[in-house]
């Protein structure tokens, strides 16, 4: 067994893991942070995306030991302490960017990383930038709209504008 120590959503966590333990299993099974999903289990779908030191990473394609000393953010850690959604979560909500929601945690984490990394995004570059995240439901258009809204391009209109402000 190996000891690993990392910060998860701002809290120091220590674990004893087998070296072959994947980060996603450490998060889900050891730390019970089950917001991070497993989809393809083979590095292709992005459902397991988390931030490692601020950058998107597929947690099914990292050993937990590789994250020793790192700063990890999962979907559980993006909203404010008082429960106010992260702007990306809010945009997904407003633009109806999810249906079954299975891809959503990974999609939101990838999108947060994307707008940080690429200051100038347009429709094409959002699609290219989210290539590693599969969604079987939405057809992607509303996801692209949500990301563009956060990226501040101003070019995206929610498809159901009458909804904005509802439920607040």
């Amino acid at each position, binding site marked *: 067994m*190996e000891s690993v120590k990392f910060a998860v959503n701002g809290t120091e966590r220590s674990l004893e893991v*087998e*070296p*072959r333990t*994947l980060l996603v299993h450490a998060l889900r099974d050891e730390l019970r942070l089950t917001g991070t999903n497993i989809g393809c*289990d*083979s*590095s*292709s779908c*992005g459902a397991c*995306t988390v931030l*490692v030191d601020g*950058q*998107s*990473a*597929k947690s099914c*394609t*990292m*050993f937990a*030991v*590789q994250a020793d000393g790192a700063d990890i953010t999962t979907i559980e850690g993006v909203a404010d302490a008082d429960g106010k959604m992260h702007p990306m979560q809010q945009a997904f909500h407003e633009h109806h960017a999810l249906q079954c929601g299975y891809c959503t945690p990974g999609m939101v984490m*990838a999108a947060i*990383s*994307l707008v940080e*990394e690429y200051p100038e995004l347009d429709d094409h570059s959002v*699609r*290219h*930038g*989210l*290539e*590693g*995240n599969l969604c079987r439901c939405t057809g992607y258009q509303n996801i692209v709209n949500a990301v563009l809204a956060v990226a501040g391009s101003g070019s995206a209109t929610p498809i159901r504008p009458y909804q904005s402000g509802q439920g607040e």
Partner: protein
Amino acid sequence: MIPASFDYEVAESAEHAVSLLADHGDEAKLLAGGHSLIPMMRFRLAAPTVLVDVGRLDDLRYINSANGTISIGALTRHSELEHSALLAESCPMLASVAALVGDPAVRHRGTLGGTLAHSDPASDLPAAVLALGATIVARGPGGDREIAATDFFTGYFESALADDEMIVEVRVAASAGGWNYQKFNRRAQDWAIVGVAVAEGGAGVSLVNMGATPLRASAVEAAVAAGASAGDAAAVAADGLQPPTDLNADADYRRHLARVFTQRALKAAGVA
């Protein structure tokens, strides 16, 4: 899918990594970004009993330039190549090819040394490095040696590296000539079904996924040097090659793609 068990060692320096490799023989493997090795271990196509993690060797993450030569540390990640202002200025092909590898999450973890050592004929950066005529610096128990990219790829997923050698640096000449990279695939985020890299206005041309290794298209280079048009030079791109047949394309279709994309790449690189 859970990989087979292994012992985990953290390398404190390249020398330490090399000595751990020498201690454990061919049972051990280096772990860099893990974005080729971990998928292979999960499918149990690889089952090393010792992993030597070189991913923490931040002193091998750099892109420097001196006297017209750009030196890149082996642990430099694809995303660091992609966003490098130095490369954008002095070797834009490398930055642009890096930006086409996988998706952002893959580029945040995958390293230049890892993709070269993995020697996948379908990978992008090995072909770029080949077209650019790069030099690969390998460190072993006896010190460093330089390997020309043209001598580096020796077979299907095989390189000229010995079991106890580690890539520490890649050197390329600053490149001002016309360049282009064509990557043909059907599925976003995927490897190239066929790819073509053209460097230095056609003086360096290489092909992706057209054989057991990334290939230098020397017939095309010779035709360009003799003044052939892009169309005429591209016509010989697939001569004598035995590309693979798989679910995506059979060998004949790959030959066709190689000619088409070589012509496009040559034209985009400024060959008339």
